[in-house]
Structure formats: structure tokens, C-alpha cells
């Protein structure tokens, strides 16, 4: 007997729950100092501050970003019918880089001061604020340019996205030549995907954005399944193709925007977690979407814990964006070879 999609999704989530719990356990127990859990719970300082104001917010941040990027990756791969689509395919990485570089360029000018106060108003740093503005503007631009005669052409949108990202990286290199070099470098390193410590209201807001986006995409999952048949095939089965595309595009962009604002461009998660989940759970988006959310969250929490530990002796840590690929690429190839 075929189980219903809801039952299969529940099984997948139950299977991933211990992995997620393990990742959270590792994430909370690793850090620069030693932490006594009982002392922290009794409110002894500095253990309580380390647990409640540093490690828990950091794990929550990694979970939100991992989940957001993974569901966006699933949606964009379905929407563009392309397995190589990642969350930044609509020019988001290029847009974020331009935004971040410009935020350094205008530091100290009237525009810079206005940007600082606007970003401070919503609790973000100027660089984060500029990166998210840039990435969202770029995604709307690429989405618009990818349309012709009232509908989105996946190949066209992909090409425009790739071209835009190249243009953007050229622009950023040119900007870097004009600006104070050491400053742009530091900002672009942040852009490579860095998890920091965000204030609680920012985390709550980002979590809400990702949760709503994931819910919308899960609700659209059945229609995303049918998009695999091609636009005509899906339309013949009663799917409003354009509406589905538009809705899932906006939901995915919102999730990626939240992730970019908090951490820059964390690569690999959004590309590979969806594929890993599909390899195990099959192609049904009604299962893949929720499972990718939980799997992506677990993966990034773990990758961040490892990033923190990797260079501890040197008193520094690599951007988590580098660790995701270092850790994920071999794992993924292993999984791929096992399954096929």
C-alpha cells in the first residue's frame, strides 16, 4: 500500500529529528571556553551568558539560515527545472556583494550615515542591511529580465542570473580598487558566509520570515511536483503555472533574503541539502520540502560548530561558508555513490 504524502513527510521528519538533536547538542557544547550546563541553568556567570546569549542564539541563527536556504534551494530547483539551481541563482549573490561593497564605499558620507541609522532602526548592521537590499533588488531584476511575453523562461532566467553575477563580481573588484582595500576585503570575507551573534528580535523576525516562506512552499509542493512535467503538462493538469512560479519565487526570495541579511552568502547548503534529501526520500516535494528544512538546519548547525572548533588553536575561525563545502562535498559524493 502507498502511504500518503503526509505520513511519508512525518516519517522523514522523525528520522531527521535525532540528527537535528545531535547537531544542536554539539553546537551548544562546543565553544571557545568550557561551559558547565548546570552552572548556566542555575544562573552562574559567565556560564549563563555564554549559554543563553551566545551559544543558543548562534545555534538558532544557524538553524534558521540552514532551513531557509535549503527550502529556497528546493523551490528554485523545481521552479527552474534545473538541478544546478542554488538559492543565489537569481543574481542574489552578486546583488549582495554590490550592496556590501557600496556600504563600505559610502561610510562617512551623508548617505552612509542615513544607511547606518536605517539599518540600526531594524536592528541590522549597515553591511547586512545593504547586502539584503542589493540581493532582493537583483533578484527582482533578474526575474523580470527572465520573463518574455508574460511568462518566465527558466533557461533565460538562469542565464540572466549567471551573467548578472559575473557583472556584479567585476563591479565589486573595480570598486575594491577604488576603496580602501583592507576594508572591502574584510566585508567581502563576511559575505563569504559568516555566522555571528544577532540580537533576539532580529532572530525572531528572521525565523518568522523563514517559517512563513517554508509554509507557503510546502503548501505549493503538489503544484511544484507537477511543474516537472513541463509548463504545458502542468497547465493541462490544472496548475496555474505563472502564479505558482511567482508565489514560490517570492517565498524563496524572502527566505534567502533573511539568510543573506544575517550571514552573507553561505554556499553549498541550498544546493546540496535538497539533493541529499531527494536521494534518500524520493522526489516528492511534499516530503522533500519539510525534510530539507530540518536537514538544512541540522547541517548548518553542525558545520558552524565545526567551523568554530577547526582553527581554535589559532584564535580565529574560517567563514562557515567555507566549512559547509569542505564538510558537505565529500559527504554528498559518498551518498551519491551509495545510492546509484
Amino acid at each position, binding site marked *: 500500500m502507498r502511504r500518503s504524502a503526509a505520513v511519508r513527510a512525518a516519517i522523514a521528519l522523525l528520522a531527521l529529528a535525532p540528527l537535528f538533536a545531535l547537531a544542536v547538542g554539539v553546537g551548544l557544547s562546543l565553544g571557545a*571556553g568550557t561551559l558547565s550546563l548546570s552552572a548556566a541553568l542555575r544562573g552562574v556567570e559567565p556560564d549563563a551568558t555564554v549559554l543563553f*546569549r*551566545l551559544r543558543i542564539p548562534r545555534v538558532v541563527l544557524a538553524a534558521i539560515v540552514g532551513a531557509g536556504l535549503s527550502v529556497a534551494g528546493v523551490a528554485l530547483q523545481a521552479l527552474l527545472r534545473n538541478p544546478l539551481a542554488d538559492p543565489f541563482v537569481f543574481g542574489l549573490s552578486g546583488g549582495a556583494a554590490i550592496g556590501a561593497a557600496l556600504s563600505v564605499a559610502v561610510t*562617512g558620507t551623508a548617505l552612509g550615515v542615513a544607511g547606518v541609522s536605517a539599518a540600526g532602526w531594524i536592528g541590522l548592521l*549597515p*553591511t547586512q542591511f545593504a547586502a539584503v537590499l542589493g540581493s532582493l533588488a537583483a533578484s527582482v531584476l533578474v526575474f523580470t529580465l527572465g520573463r518574455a511575453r508574460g511568462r518566465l523562461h527558466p533557461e533565460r532566467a538562469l542565464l540572466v542570473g549567471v551573467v548578472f553575477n559575473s557583472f556584479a563580481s567585476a563591479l565589486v573588484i573595480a570598486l575594491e580598487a577604488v576603496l580602501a582595500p583592507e576594508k572591502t576585503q574584510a*566585508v567581502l570575507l563576511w559575505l563569504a558566509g559568516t555566522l555571528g*551573534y544577532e540580537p533576539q528580535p532580529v532572530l525572531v523576525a528572521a525565523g518568522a520570515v523563514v517559517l512563513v516562506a517554508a509554509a507557503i512552499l510546502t503548501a505549493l509542493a503538489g503544484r511544484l511536483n507537477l511543474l516537472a512535467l513541463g509548463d504545458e503538462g502542468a497547465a493541462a493538469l490544472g496548475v496555474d503555472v505563472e502564479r505558482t512560479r511567482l508565489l514560490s519565487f517570492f517565498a524563496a526570495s524572502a527566505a534567502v533574503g533573511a539568510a543573506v541579511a544575517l550571514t552573507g552568502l553561505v554556499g553549498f547548503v541550498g544546493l546540496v541539502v535538497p539533493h541529499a534529501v531527494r536521494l534518500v526520500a524520493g522526489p516528492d516535494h511534499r516530503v522533500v520540502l519539510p525534510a530539507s528544512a530540518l536537514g538544512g538546519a541540522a547541517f548548518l548547525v553542525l558545520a558552524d560548530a565545526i567551523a568554530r572548533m577547526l582553527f581554535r588553536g589559532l*584564535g*580565529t575561525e574560517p567563514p562557515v561558508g567555507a566549512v559547509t563545502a569542505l564538510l558537505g562535498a565529500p559527504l554528498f559524493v559518498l551518498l551519491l555513490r551509495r545510492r546509484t
Partner: protein
Amino acid sequence: MTRVFALLLAAALTRQHLGPPVPAQVRRVVTLAPSLSEIVLALGAGDRLVGVTRFDDDPRVAALPRVGGYNDPEPETVLGLHPDLVIAQPAPENRGPVETLARIGIPVEAFALDDLKEVEDAMEQIGALLGVPERGRALRDELERHRAGVRAEAAKGPRRRALLVFGLDPLVVAGPRGFAGELLRDTGAVNAAGDAERPFARMSVEAAVRAQPDVVVICGFEPPPGRPAIPGLPRARVTTLRSTALLHPGPRLAEGLDDLVAALRGKRAP
């Protein structure tokens, strides 16, 4: 609203305070830049330093715990040292980590150290924060006296055109508005970098050649061997300043000024 106001102020001022108020008696200090550690040491408060960056190379802090770098202080490590004051240098790239420190309850004072006025203000104000205001004022006076002495001596000497080089690929030079450029003026030299806006500015090789410097001073690093540091300047004398004193905006600038005078005179550079 207060946060927005604070940030607006922060953009306009060279000194900023974040987090809870600094206690009247500061006993445990963490610094996030080597020059700031040197200021604390010069104030005679080295025994109150409990953590420094991984870039700190002063032998007096060799045994102290490292809290990370200038841009990536590790909040857990800082917190574990129980500081009642963290002293930082404000910059867009370390803003996130420094705000985190303030949010978890550590008083942070940040001082811009781009020009000599800012450096001297920082020495005086850090002195006040540490309860030794007279030492802070003395540091300012010492540096000023030293500069006046060098200026008086320089008035008798030749006015050379000099370029202070801090990076070669791309070429980065000291502009007249930063502390290095101001010290160069004290030596009586003319800054061949022109009137660059930034303390440390990029310059094209062509512009450097057109500026016709008599002396090129390579500051704090070794140029690659086997070829001219800057092509097209066969007549300029190139000297290398191995001492890093000129790179540390703090009390070591007096020493850096002497190094610079020696280098410009063509004595064996320190």
C-alpha cells in the same frame, strides 16, 4: 530610538561608548588592537591587561591570553576573562563582534586612531578611564614635545620630497591627513603623495613617478628582492624601515618619528 541616536552619534564622533557604563575603578582590561595595548602599557596600567589580540607582539604582553583578531574577537573568550572594560578601534568590519560584546554586558570604549589628534585624545581619554588622567596628559605632552623637537631640528635641514610606502602591490602610501603623513611633515619633508583624502591611500605607479620623490621609505615590510620597489624612479633613494613603530598609532609613534628621521637622512635605518 536611543539605538538609532547612538549609531548616528557614532558615525560622527571619533570616540564611542557601547554597553553598560565603565566602572569608576577599572581593574581588568581587554584591548582589541596592539596600539591600544601599548597605550595601556605606557599609562603604567599593564598589570590590568587581561587579554590582547593575536597580533600583539610587545614582549610585556607575551604571556597574556589572546582573544582573537582585530575583526574577530571571540565573545566567549573575552567573557571568560571577566573584563570590566574592552578598548577597541571602531571600523565597519568589526562592528558586529564589538556590538555583541556590548550586548552581553561588557562596557566597550572605541577610539579612532587615524590622525595624531585622535591618537593623543585616545591616550588622554584612556588615561582618564583607567584613573590615571595625569599619565594620559603626560603621554600627549611627551609626544607633542618630541614632535616640536624634531620640527625645530628639521627647520635647519633640507626639504626632501618623500613617499611613505605601506604596500607595493597595489601601491599604498601615507596621505597627509593620517598620523604617518603628519609625522612626515614634522621631519620637514614634503609628502610626495599630494593631498590624498585617506590616511593610507592607493597611488598609481605613474602618479608616484610623476611626483618625483627624492626618498622612498618602505615602512614595516621587506620589498621583494631583485627588482626596484617602484619602477621608473632610478634617482630616488629607497630605504626600508624595518621597525614597526610607525605602524602603531600610540606612544610608540615618538620612536617611529625618530626612525623616520634617520631613514630620511640616509643613516642606517632601524
